[in-house]
């Protein structure tokens, strides 16, 4: 997070003198941006007005230059306090008055200096080590007794998202969910982003990974081939899923069915309901999905593509899982940690056809990561937005159509 911010106060007869306009113009002309936090306008000519202005700039030097330029016009830097810490009273327990994070870029003030909080994520606490060399958002469960946690609201500030330079669907940063809006331009914008990200990923640039979190409906609905193509062509770099997506994907390879239905014939196959159990049992016998692919037992499909492309897969289990497959993390807290560990490199998140994994992933993503939630059920993107992931663009459509159209736009031969 490289945005630098300072809040200033301007008071007096700042409206009719055009002083407020002048200060705001100076900020913009110098290349900064601002948010007018509060404006109080005097009710009579004699009564003064005042404004609180948060100024943002891309560098500390530019911010200092802007502050220097507006101070002669009466803009005074707001008196701000350092943040306060308290020690965690026990392992896994925050101090009572702990500051609960949002998923927006956040800074805390230590010894008069604003420091970015690393690994920002909603609903965590902020850990600061003795030397303040580590300032990181941490989940409640991982805190150790005696670690310093930020308490209260003093010295904590949230930096509003800047509109991205790209004038695409992510620029609106608001999740309007409707089945009745055209999807074409949204998918085209996602494809354009993925095209750019693949280039950046090949140049090993930061935050260039595309994350896909998906449910088994991708297999049932017929989106499997498109997703395999996207993985093999280097458009997807991280996969989050559960036991089911992996099991049905490999079931399709071994038996040609998905949950017992013939994928091509579209009929229930005799004893087909056993196929996913036999698949899971077979992989358990081999020891791991990687080994199953390496030994040639599993030849095609999403899991095979991930293994061959070196795409990390985090599989999180649930209480209704069969098996589960080797590699499925059944401890939810450990699963969250495993997902959290790969979030920092993500530059685009596609949450496709899974309520559980979409919400779970949304909870872990900083607001700065462009996010798309695709589901036939409008309540999924709505739920995601209601739980705070306001940056997610909702698409009400089925997974197969989405993935096929996306792959087509990215060059998959039809």
């Amino acid at each position, binding site marked *: 997070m490289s945005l630098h911010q300072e809040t200033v106060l301007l*008071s*007096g*007869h700042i409206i*009719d*003198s*055009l*002083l407020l*306009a*002048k200060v705001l113009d100076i900020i913009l002309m110098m290349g900064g941006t601002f948010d007018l936090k509060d404006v109080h306008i005097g009710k009579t*000519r*004699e009564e*003064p007005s005042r404004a609180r202005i948060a100024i943002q700039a891309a560098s500390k030097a530019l911010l200092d230059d802007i502050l220097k330029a507006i101070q*002669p*016009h*009466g803009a*005074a830097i707001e008196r701000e306090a350092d943040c306060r810490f308290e020690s965690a009273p026990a392992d896994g327990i925050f101090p009572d008055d702990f500051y609960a994070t949002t998923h927006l870029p956040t800074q805390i003030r230590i010894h008069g200096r604003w420091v970015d909080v690393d690994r920002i994520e909603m609903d965590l606490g902020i850990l600061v080590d003795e030397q303040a060399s580590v300032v990181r958002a941490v989940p409640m469960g991982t805190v150790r007794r005696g670690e310093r946690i930020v308490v209260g609201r003093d010295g904590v500030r949230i930096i509003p998202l800047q509109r991205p330079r790209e004038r695409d669907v992510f620029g609106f940063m608001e999740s309007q969910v409707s089945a009745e809006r055209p999807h074409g331009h949204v998918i085209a914008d996602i494809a354009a982003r993925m095209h750019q990200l693949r280039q950046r990923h090949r140049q090993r640039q930061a935050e260039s990974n595309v994350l896909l979190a998906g449910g088994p409906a991708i297999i049932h609905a017929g989106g499997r081939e498109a997703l395999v193509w996207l993985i093999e062509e280097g458009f997807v770099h991280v996969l989050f899923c559960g036991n089911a997506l992996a099991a049905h994907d490999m079931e399709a390879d071994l038996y040609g069915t998905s949950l017992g239905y013939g994928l091509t014939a579209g009929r229930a196959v005799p004893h087909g309901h056993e196929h996913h159990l036999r698949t899971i049992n077979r992989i358990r016998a081999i020891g791991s999905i990687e080994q199953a692919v390496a030994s040639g037992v599993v030849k095609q499909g999403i899991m095979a593509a991930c293994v061959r492309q070196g795409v990390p897969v985090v599989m999180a289990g649930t209480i209704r899982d069969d098996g589960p497959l080797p590699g499925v993390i059944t401890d939810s807290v450990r699963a969250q940690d495993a997902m959290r560990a790969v979030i920092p490199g993500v530059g685009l998140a596609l949450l496709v056809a899974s309520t559980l994994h979409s919400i779970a992933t949304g909870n872990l993503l900083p607001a700065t990561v462009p996010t798309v939630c695709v589901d036939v059920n409008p309540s999924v993107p709505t739920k995601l937005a209601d739980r705070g992931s306001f940056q997610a663009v909702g698409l009400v459509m089925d997974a197969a159509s989405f993935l096929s159209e996306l792959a087509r736009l990215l060059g998959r031969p039809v």
Partner: protein
Amino acid sequence: MSRLLICPPDFFGIEYEINPWMRLSNRVDHEQAVKQWHGLMRVFEHDVGVTLERMTPVAGLPDLVFTANAGIVVDRTAVVSRFRYPERQREEVHFESWFRDHGYEVVTLDKELYFEGAGDLLGFPDCWFGGYRQRSDIRAFPFLSERFRREIIPLELVDARFYHLDTCFCPLSGGDLLYFPPAFDPYGQSAIAQRVPKDRQLPVPEDDALRFACNAVCVGKHVVLPSGCPTTEHLLQARGYRTHSVPLDEFMKSGGSAKCFDAGAGLVCREAM
């Protein structure tokens, strides 16, 4: 009855350079300066009919003569100036004791809050204007505005030659405004236009502005201004003012003219404000 605070130019001279007009190499003809000062006082007393309050000059304070910078006076309250430059900060104590000795309630500003009196705060009865950036600090105005319950429109002075508001801006008793627009930026010019209707604005040409035409003293329909500003005199006469031009070129070497002597205190602050 208008009163003016004045200080004889016994020790006037150029002993430092704190504005673009001052040159140490530019020698003041002291005898001539004294003559011009007495000429101005004669006009004030006899032609305009104001009462003069005299301050005792102090050796080593050459600019004490420019009493407009003493502070501002509203009714019986005096706000004493806080000068930006150390050379003039030594005057503060003398202005302060004069106000105290004459029964004014004295208000002082925080040490770092520069405010150069009636040099930078002028106005009409309902609206005051504050010049800032060159000498006064804009932060002084909200304080004064609250103290006196008046609107103060801050105006940035963008030309170093017009370092005090009273060098380029002169509200007149009839609601007219004598001023030099290029001394302000477009924001300031728009703010002035919002408060002073177009037909009340008397913009002076640059030649006159550089002879300090705006550093004039207005009492009723009398306007006292430096000589050599014929266009400005015509402008004023056309609006029904009676002009009195006084040669003050010895004082202009120091960047001051007629208004600079009037002691913000006595005159402009009480009459115009």
